[in-house]
């Protein structure tokens, strides 16, 4: 019970580790920001142009400094979650361009969608975190900066769950930290978790590095997560992809530890393959799931929390393809023991579209996966010898004490799957999907906002006003 699903043997993990160190020392990593290169140079790394060649000693030191787990705090402390240490925390999608609901075609996301999505995620027991640009809406904002500020503000405004960050260069990262500082009323701790994407292979852009430095200096949480596509931006072989990705993650992690030892860094990876004909990113591919499992193992090798996987698909509708691909990826993610899972529900069309229905459907995907991972508990009590003797041959267990004691905990029940008898005249094409629609609509009706202290709300609104000269639209 409770062992993780693994695909790499211990010696294979070491081979990948050794290969990555070789890459870091000999091929080097491109850091496109002088400040980042200077930090490496000051600690003895060789720098040539924008390439940094990172000696293994620096990597080993950084790995010792990085925490094995950390508490990602919520403004409501009861909702804080541990990242690392064995639990799997689900996070909502990020960066979706379109939304899709109630069987209609996709449309561009608007600010009202973001608010509704934060409200839905807030009430869901599936998602442990919230916010951070679940969708990037179209809307009348004075600037992109204002749009991102609004997303950050609205995340705190409508939910007291831990917040995911937004990182698109220094300005946005600073805003992310500013709003979380205000929301926490100055309480210390890790209060936001942002993602840094290397540009595979082996490159970090100036924007991402600026964001990394800003988060690290404040000791805030960082996920370093490449998203390479094997055959295009990483080698065709999954082992080779892991070598490149591992080098990228270790490079980013090392920089964060050089800047501030002890910075919480999550060992992330969202890599998969490119389709060999269309070059499209293939999230529903079995290769993605293998990389997820490999990533979780590498993270454990380094005693780091991990981020990978999700409930992922390339399907354009919450249909058969969406169902089977999402289950494969989320089951692997959970069974592999990944610590935090972004895109753990709602994703369609390779990260582009968020489906309201799938946001609910994936609560079942995740529930199933987590139940599966819990495994079979075997002990005197669960062997049920007494109950078996009691009811003997031909009896049933329906009302036995043992049943009453265990069934609710032992058996997981889906909210959507159809386990009824066949109903004449029911439209089975639409039936389960309609249940999902009802579920999210009902939840929106039942939402009530976890208000912040009045002075904090005032401070946030004033900040927004001063910065952008307008009032944030908050009750749409």
């Amino acid at each position: 019970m409770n062992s993780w699903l693994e695909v790499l043997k211990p010696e294979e993990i070491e081979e990948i580790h050794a290969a990555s160190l070789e890459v870091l020392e000999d091929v080097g990593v491109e850091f496109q920001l002088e400040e980042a290169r200077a930090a490496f140079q000051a600690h003895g790394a060789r720098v040539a142009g924008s390439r940094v060649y990172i000696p293994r000693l620096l990597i080993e030191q950084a790995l010792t400094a990085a925490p094995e787990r950390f508490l990602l705090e919520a403004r409501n402390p009861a909702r804080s979650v541990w990242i690392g240490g064995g639990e799997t925390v689900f996070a909502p999608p990020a960066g979706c361009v379109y939304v899709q609901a109630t069987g209609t075609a996709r449309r561009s996301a608007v600010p009202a969608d973001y608010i509704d999505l934060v409200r839905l995620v807030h009430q869901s027991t599936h998602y442990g975190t919230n916010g951070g640009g679940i969708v990037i809406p179209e809307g009348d904002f004075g600037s992109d900066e204002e749009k991102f500020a609004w997303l950050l503000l609205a995340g705190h405004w409508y939910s007291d769950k831990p917040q995911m960050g937004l990182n698109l260069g220094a300005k946005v990262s600073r805003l992310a930290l500013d709003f979380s500082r205000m929301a926490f009323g100055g309480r210390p701790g890790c209060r936001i978790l942002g993602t840094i994407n290397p540009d595979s292979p082996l490159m970090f852009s100036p924007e991402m590095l600026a964001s990394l430095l800003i988060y690290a200096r404040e000791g805030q949480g960082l996920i370093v997560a490449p998203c390479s596509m094997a055959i295009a931006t990483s080698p065709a072989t999954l082992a080779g992809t892991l070598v490149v990705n591992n080098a990228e993650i270790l490079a980013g992690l090392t920089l964060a530890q050089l800047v501030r030892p002890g910075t919480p860094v999550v060992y992330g990876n969202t890599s998969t393959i490119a389709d060999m004909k269309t070059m499209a990113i293939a999230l529903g591919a079995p290769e993605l799931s293998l990389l997820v499992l490999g990533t979780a193992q590498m993270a454990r090798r380094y005693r780091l929390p991990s981020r990978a996987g999700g409930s992922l698909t390339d399907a354009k509708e919450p249909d058969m393809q969406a169902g089977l691909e999402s289950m494969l990826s989320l089951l692997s993610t959970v069974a592999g023991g990944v610590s935090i899972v972004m895109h753990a529900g709602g994703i369609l069309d390779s990260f582009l579209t968020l489906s309201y229905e799938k946001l609910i459907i994936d609560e079942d995907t995740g529930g199933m996966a987590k139940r599966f991972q819990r495994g079979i508990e075997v002990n005197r009590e669960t062997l049920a010898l007494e109950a078996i003797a009691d009811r003997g041959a031909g009896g049933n267990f329906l009302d036995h004490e043992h049943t009453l004691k265990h069934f609710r905990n032992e058996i997981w029940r889906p909210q959507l799957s159809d386990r009824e008898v066949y109903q004449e005249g029911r439209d089975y094409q639409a039936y389960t999907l309609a249940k999902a629609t009802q579920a999210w609509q009902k939840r929106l009706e039942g939402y009530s906002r976890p208000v912040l202290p009045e002075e904090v709300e005032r401070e946030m609104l004033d900040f927004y006003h001063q910065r952008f000269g307008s009032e944030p639209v908050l009750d749409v």
Partner: protein
Amino acid sequence: MDFKGMNEHVLKGNVEEVTRGTQEMLESGAEPLRIISEGLIPGMNVVGGLFKKGEMFVPEVMRSAKAMSAGIALVRPLIADSDIPTRGTVLMGTVRGDLHDIGKNLVSMMLESQGFTVIDLGVNITPEQFVAAAEKHRPQIIGMSALLTTTMLAMRETIKALQEVNLTDGIKVMIGGAPVTAAFAKEIGADGYAPDAGSAVELCEQFVA
């Protein structure tokens, strides 16, 4: 080596054999233009067909394109630029603020394999850089790629910048990238939009027809 043999080597993507064959042909006095049009391009046309049918894949197409280019590189100094057979020149780039380049690279590769000359400016290309490159290369077509909703706006600016110096008169502008739509293309005054690499080639064919 004869033209048929060359076609085979292009199909197989054998750079060394294509190089050797081209040299051999040049030494034996073959006409440079014919080497291209009969030795190299027909091989690549077969590749294009097999790719469409799903029998060859992107890495193999690239290998063949590389083999063809190796041959063309040897022939090029012997003929005037204007005589090099091309269906048109396409200037490609990912717009300012955007680093996504896989889609753009694929479109470029497909265009090249179908006989277009592609000048790839790379990623994070400002409107000014597009204008400067357009003035320098005088392409028939400019292609812009954007994958972020925020950088899509740079496409509008780039078109404006091109219009200001009257470059859109003779040049067709096409745009693409996952969040880009035909409606957006229309809105910002682009001449065309294509959802994928295959249709990008068709679009360019229409532009130069």
